[in-house]
């Protein structure tokens, strides 16, 4: 076997190993999702007796969906989740994009550097550390818990650091200062320069931040469970909690609730997918 043939064989073997590992990882991550999908169309008994069967002994059923929707007051909790997720995501994007623009373009100001350093530092503080003081301050002192606005405000507060960090990098590497100078000469104010020139060019980063934060806000359980106590303003993750009883869990309803919770964010991901790839790779290669 020549050296070239040996190298080709080694390359082929490495490729096969890589593909195998990737398939295993893919199955590992996709399995819970598949389990939810195949069990949501079975009744409770079939899920328990044959969780891996595609169709249970009692056949295909859709009854889990209406029952779960009625029990969790689906349309109301869906509306709450939607309002909270959309408002929090939009506010996070607006606040962090504007903040990072000011920080990047005024890099000489020590205040900007200090604020940015604080924001980056705050990213490493786990939420659990702030949980108790947060509830005691906002609930005990200000008494403003149990409100969608408070939850939105907290979501924005917790996510703005990461988003600012991402926008900071995007503006720093992808938006040439000359574009802003051209806009200033063309007649833009600083405000117009940001909205008409800089913000539209941040589209890939906006999409990335939108999907990351929307997923986090939509799926968040811990913060809403601390802030929201009134059933009327529950979000989907909290509403699904009621299917888990102390002594029994209606697993069929849980599966239906999970599918209902997953769908909107999957649709959002499919819409924003191409921007996310652009956002992740932007700045990697000189365009």
């Amino acid at each position, binding site marked *: 076997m020549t050296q070239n043939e040996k190298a080709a064989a080694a390359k082929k073997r490495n490729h096969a190993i890589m593909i195998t590992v990737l398939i295993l990882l893919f199955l590992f991550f996709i399995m819970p999702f598949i389990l939810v999908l195949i069990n949501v169309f079975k009744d409770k008994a079939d899920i328990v007796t044959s969780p891996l069967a595609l169709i249970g002994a009692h056949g295909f059923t859709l009854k889990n969906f209406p029952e779960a929707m009625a029990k969790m007051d689906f349309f109301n909790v869906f509306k709450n989740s939607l309002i909270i997720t959309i408002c929090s995501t939009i506010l996070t994007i607006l606040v962090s994009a504007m903040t990072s623009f000011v920080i990047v373009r005024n890099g000489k100001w020590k205040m900007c550097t200090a604020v940015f350093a604080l924001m980056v530092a705050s990213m490493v503080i786990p939420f659990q550390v702030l949980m108790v003081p947060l509830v005691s301050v906002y609930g005990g002192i200000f008494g403003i818990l149990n409100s969608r606005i408070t939850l939105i405000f907290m979501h924005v507060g917790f996510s703005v650091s990461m988003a600012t960090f991402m926008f900071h990098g995007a503006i720093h590497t992808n938006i040439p200062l000359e574009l802003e100078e051209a806009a200033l*000469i063309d007649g833009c104010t600083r405000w117009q320069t940001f909205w008409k020139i800089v913000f539209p060019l941040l589209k890939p980063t906006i999409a990335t931040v939108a999907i990351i934060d929307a997923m986090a806000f939509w799926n968040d359980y811990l913060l809403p469970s601390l802030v929201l106590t009134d059933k009327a303003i529950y979000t989907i993750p909290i509403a699904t909690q009621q299917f888990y009883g102390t002594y029994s869990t209606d697993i069929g309803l849980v599966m239906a609730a999970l599918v209902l919770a997953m769908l909107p964010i999957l649709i959002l991901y499919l819409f924003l997918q191409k921007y996310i790839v652009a956002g992740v790779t932007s700045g990697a290669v000189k365009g």
Partner: protein
Amino acid sequence: MASLSLKHIEKVYENGFHAVHDFNLEVEDKEFIIFVGPSGCGKSTTLRMIAGLEDISSGEFKIDGVLMNDVEPKDRDIAMVFQSYALYPHMTVRDNMGFALKLRNVPKDEIDAKVDEVAKILDLEKLLDRKPKALSGGQRQRVAMGRAIVRQPKVFLMDEPLSNLDAKLRVQMRTEIAKLHERLGTTIIYVTHDQTEAMTLGTRIVVMKDGIVQQINSPEHLYNKPCNLFVAGFIGSPQMNFLDALVEKKGADTFLDIAGFKIKLPADKAAAVQDYVGKTIVAGIRPEHLLDGRGKEDQFCTITAPIEVRELLGAEAYLYFTLAGKQCTARVASDVDLYVGMVGTMALDLNKLQLFDKETELSLLWTE
């Protein structure tokens, strides 16, 4: 169109770096002014101060007699073409060109009409619906020019607009810019480090070095009467040959001793070096003023040196040789049969000879 006045303009950055020293310039209406100089000489900084993108540390800048020091860029009625073109990537060519008018709330029909008119001048009609990324370098450059022209500003500022183009396109666009200036009759201030662009485009050239204006004159004047060694070396390509020359006097005649060759100076040049007899000055001669001197020894002062390199450019050839330890270049017709290894006889066109003080580097022949 407008006249500009820059008086005692200084630029000092926060870190103490003094970028521009006492810049004075009066620009008349319809002039094509070129700021030229090596990198870091302050030419772009001065242009940016005119644009309002940099603060003026001290001095007065006026457009049509109105003080502009603290006026926002958008209110100066200027347009600028950037080196990188700075086209808005998310807008089409039409939107890019009409953006400034849109900001001024000009009716859409009027914007479209103006954009179409300028697109026709610049041959951009077929590209109006494209985004900048779908354009070539030359097309982007034309869009950047179009964006400036559409506004009909008082002054055009151009910051090395041809630097990103390949050599052929650069020559083509240079001609286009000259034609546009002729056609629009606008006041243009143009920054470049390319002396060829400066010489071919400018009505007046401002030569800068280390933030200090060296000379402001017409291209012809700069070429024929440089005020110092720097200007003499910077203007002209290949650059002027500089040689140390000892001034000697024999009777009524004044000679320069260059590497052992005695060169008799004509009367006007001899008068300029009377105070330097016995001292060394710098003699400057452009490569195009060194001629093939074979057989012309009785008409011209000649020098001889072995040819080290011959570069054929087509119609002409550059001959490189060393004289008194300094590399020299002669620019001769390509049919001159002087080749590497031969000893070249070069005749000096003494009418074109430049003389400089070795200490101050100032020209001994310079007049305003």
